[in-house]
Every structure is written in C-alpha cells, then in structure tokens.
C-alpha cells in the first residue's frame, strides 16, 4: 500500500515540480506585462522576444566577454531594459493617443523582427548555456525524486523578484506614483510629476523583468530565437486569467497555473497543454476582468 503510494508520488512529484518551475517563468513574465499594461495601456507583444533577448545576451556575455552567469543575471536585464527604453522613446510613445490595438500591432511587429534577426544571426537550433556548477549544492535528492539545484534556484529567484517588485509598487513612494499614474496619468502630471519619463522607465523595467526571466531560462531551455514565442502564448493566457494590470494577480496566477499544468500532466496528460486555455475560456465567460481584476 505504502509502496504503491510512494510509486504514485514518484511519478507525480517531478511533474508538479516542473509545473512550479514553469510557473516561476509565467509569474515573472506576466508580472512585467501587467506593469507595462497598467502604466502604458500597451499590450507588450514583444515580451517573449525580450525574454529571448535576455537569454541571448547572457550567452553572448559568456561566449564573447567571459562574463559568467551571475554577472549576466545583472547585466542582461540592464542591457535589454535599455533597449526597451529606446523602443519606448522612439516608437511606442508615439502611439499613446491612439487605440490600444496600435501598440499591440507595433510590439507584435517588433517581436517578429527581433526573432527574425536572431534566427538569421544564430540559426534556430539553439545554443547551450551551462548552469554554474555551484547549483549542484542545491540538488534535492530524496526517495521520491531528484530535483536539480538550478531549478530550485529558479523558483527561489522568481519568488524573490516578484516579491521585491510587489513591495516597490505597494510600499514605496515610486510605487504610489505608479499606482496613481495608472489610474489618472493626467492628474499625476498636473501635480508636477514627469509622467512620460515614468512611462519610459516602467517599460524599461517591465522589459528588464522579461530579460531576467530569460537569463534564468538560459540554462534550462536551449538558448534559441523561438524560446520566447513558445512561452508567451501561455503567458498571455495567464494574464487574462489573473486580470490585466493586477500585480499580485499575475504572480499568484502564474505560479498557480504552472502547478495546474503540472498536475494535469499526472492526472490527464492529454490536457496538460490546453488546461490553461480551458481555464482562460471559463474565466473570460464568468469573470471577464480576470480573477484579480477590478471592474
């Protein structure tokens, strides 16, 4: 009986944990999307491409400059974030007065261009990026499963970064500006705050979060131009389920749906790829603003 249960656990645990690791990426990516949407009212379709850029920049830093993982974890988000700032200033900022749809089309186009450029430059087969050996110390090796230390780190890092982002937004003065400007940008600007600059920096920060997730992902998935596109569709579903623009909602939903996907792989594997979208459809029908959305 107990042996049977252990066997079941042995089958289930890795899938659930894998779900949690995926959830860590969903949470980071949907968090960045939520921040950008809240402040800029732009659905950033380039988010997946920027995630992929984070992974590539980490690879370039190592291959071309000898800068190891830890350096890349800081530098790649900065570099890709600056790229985001330039994109916002030169292109997205021109679209704020138009319908949402234009921002979506622009960023979708950007995503295609960015992915195309990387495919041209690096091919589509993928480049290897080894995690630092130090993570082996975090390996979890218990009777029911073996979990590589690096994946433990991914979950920890994601939780920490999400928590830090939430704290900045909910508990600091900058966060108060951000929340207020999300509600009524015009009035916040009439108080003497440079809202256009806030929007630029918010976009940069959201993009940096995507790039950070990209660096985390580099050692797990091979670094390839399509890695963002694979993720981003599910991430958009996560955002819809959690509620556009809700910070806590996107984090909780990200981890939650990762877990649900993992469980689905145990219970009914055929559904694992679609369960998120089924939930999305149900949420859209019953609570169109999302589980954590207002209104």
């Amino acid at each position: 009986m107990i042996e049977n249960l252990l066997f079941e656990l042995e089958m289930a645990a890795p899938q659930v944990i894998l779900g949690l690791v995926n959830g860590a990426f969903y949470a980071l990516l949907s968090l960045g999307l939520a921040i950008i949407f809240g402040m800029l009212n732009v659905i950033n379709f380039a988010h997946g491409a920027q995630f992929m850029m984070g992974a590539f920049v980490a690879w370039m830093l190592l291959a071309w400059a000898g800068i190891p993982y830890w350096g890349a974890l800081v530098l790649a988000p900065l570099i890709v974030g600056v790229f985001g700032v330039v994109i916002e200033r030169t292109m997205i900022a021109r679209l704020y007065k138009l319908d949402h749809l234009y921002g979506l089309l622009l960023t979708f186009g950007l995503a295609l261009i960015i992915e195309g450029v990387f495919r041209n430059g690096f091919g589509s087969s993928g480049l290897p990026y080894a995690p630092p050996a130090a993570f082996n110390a975090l390996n979890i090796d218990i009777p029911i499963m073996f979990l590589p230390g690096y994946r433990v780190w991914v979950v920890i890092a994601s939780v920490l970064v999400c928590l830090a982002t939430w704290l900045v937004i909910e508990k600091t003065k900058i966060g108060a500006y951000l929340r207020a400007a999300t509600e009524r940008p015009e009035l916040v600007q009439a108080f003497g705050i440079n809202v256009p600059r806030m929007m630029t920096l918010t976009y940069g920060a959201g993009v940096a979060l995507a790039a950070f997730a990209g660096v985390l992902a580099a050692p797990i998935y091979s670094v390839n131009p399509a890695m963002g596109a694979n993720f981003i569709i599910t991430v958009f579903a996560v955002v819809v389920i959690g509620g556009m623009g809700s910070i806590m909602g996107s984090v909780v939903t990200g981890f939650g749906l990762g877990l649900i996907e993992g469980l689905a792989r145990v219970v009914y594997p055929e559904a694992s790829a679609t369960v998120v979208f089924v939930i999305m459809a149900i949420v859209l029908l019953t609570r169109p603003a999302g589980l954590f959305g207002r209104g």
Partner: protein
Amino acid sequence: MRDGTAAPAMLEIRDLQAWYGESHVLHGVSLDIREGEVVTLLGRNGAGKTSTLRAMMGLVGRRAGSIRFEGRETIGLRSDLIARTGIAYCPEERGIFASLDVTENLMLPPVIAPGGLGLDEIYTLFPNLKERARSPGTKLSGGEQQMLAIARILRTGARLLLLDEPSEGLAPVIVQQIGAMIREIKQRGFTVLLVEQNFRFAQTVADRHYVMEHGRIVDMVANDQLTASLDRLHEYLGV
C-alpha cells in the same frame, strides 16, 4: 486701468483660447488675480469654467493666448512644468486615487517649493485625515475626499490654488466647513481661483467674481457690490 490697484497681478491671462480636439471651448478668456486674493469663476454649466482651469494646467488638447504666472509665460509648458511654477490644481471630481490610502493620497503631490503647510498643520486643519490614514482614499465620505483633495495641494508650496467646485454635491454643513477652510487658507496667504456654480457659497469666501459665458469672461463683480448686482447675475446664471 487695472482696477486702480498698484500691485502687479500674480496671474495674468490674456485672450486664452482652448480646444479639445476639434471643439473650440475657450474663446479669449482674460483675467487677473492678485496675490492673496480669492477669486471665483461663476457661470452656467458649459460656460468654460472648468476648461479655463484645465487650460491653465495644460490639460486641454491645444491652447493659445497668454498665461503669465508671477511674470513667467506658461502657455508653452507641459503640465508637470506648469505645476512646478507654483500652481496647484484640485479637479472637480476630486481625483482621489482608489489604489492609494489616505496618507499616500495626501503625500502624492511632490513638494515644489518651501512654504507649504507641514503635516502637523494639515492634521490640525483636517483631523479626520489622520484618523483614517490607512483607509483607501475612495472609502472616505464625499466631504472628507474634498478635504483630502485640498489638503494635499496645501503641502506642496504652491501659492496659487485652482479649486474646481469644491462645494459640489456636499451637504450644507460640509459646504460651510469648506468655506471656513478657504477663508483659513486665504488668511495663510494662499491665492485661490475658485470655480463655482453656487454663488451664495462663492459670496462667503471670495473678493471678486468673474462671470463666464460661452467660453469668455463677460463680467467682473467685486464681492462688496454683489448684492447691488444681483439682477445682472441672476440673468447670467439663470438662477
């Protein structure tokens, strides 16, 4: 010619025009406000009172003419830079942020110059704001929200306050409190431009009244001549 007073105006508006998209809402507004005055803009709905305040803050689509504040032309400035010249704005719908608590709402507008009220003074004037510090801003009563909306711009060091219908939708006893507060801030040397529909209320706080019609100033009445001009005003305001 300028009302016979020697002091130069703190605010001089000349031939201010404003548009929202294609719609031309101000057709040449001219007015002066001297330091320390409380001046109202009276007029019917749609006369352009709110648009005048919004145009002063750079919150309309396009504007032309001249707005000189303390000698400095602000017509070409972005609204955050206008605010930083020392003008603070309290919108008609009060603009209390739902996702910020009372203290965050109060502390939101950045201090732009020395000389604003300190937090202690604010809490003395508005004790409710201290009691409800952690409530979400929009959970306050209408009167409390109005107090909060005014209190937060007293902190910033701005010397000219633009108040858009602070009495609107409030119970008479609260309107009296708002009136007392406006007299108090005048005592403290603030200059106020007040948009009002309720001229009985305006009468209790203001030094002068401008009357607007169809996006223009059509008359100016000193408060001490208000009773003598009642017939004229009734015609303008349709009351």
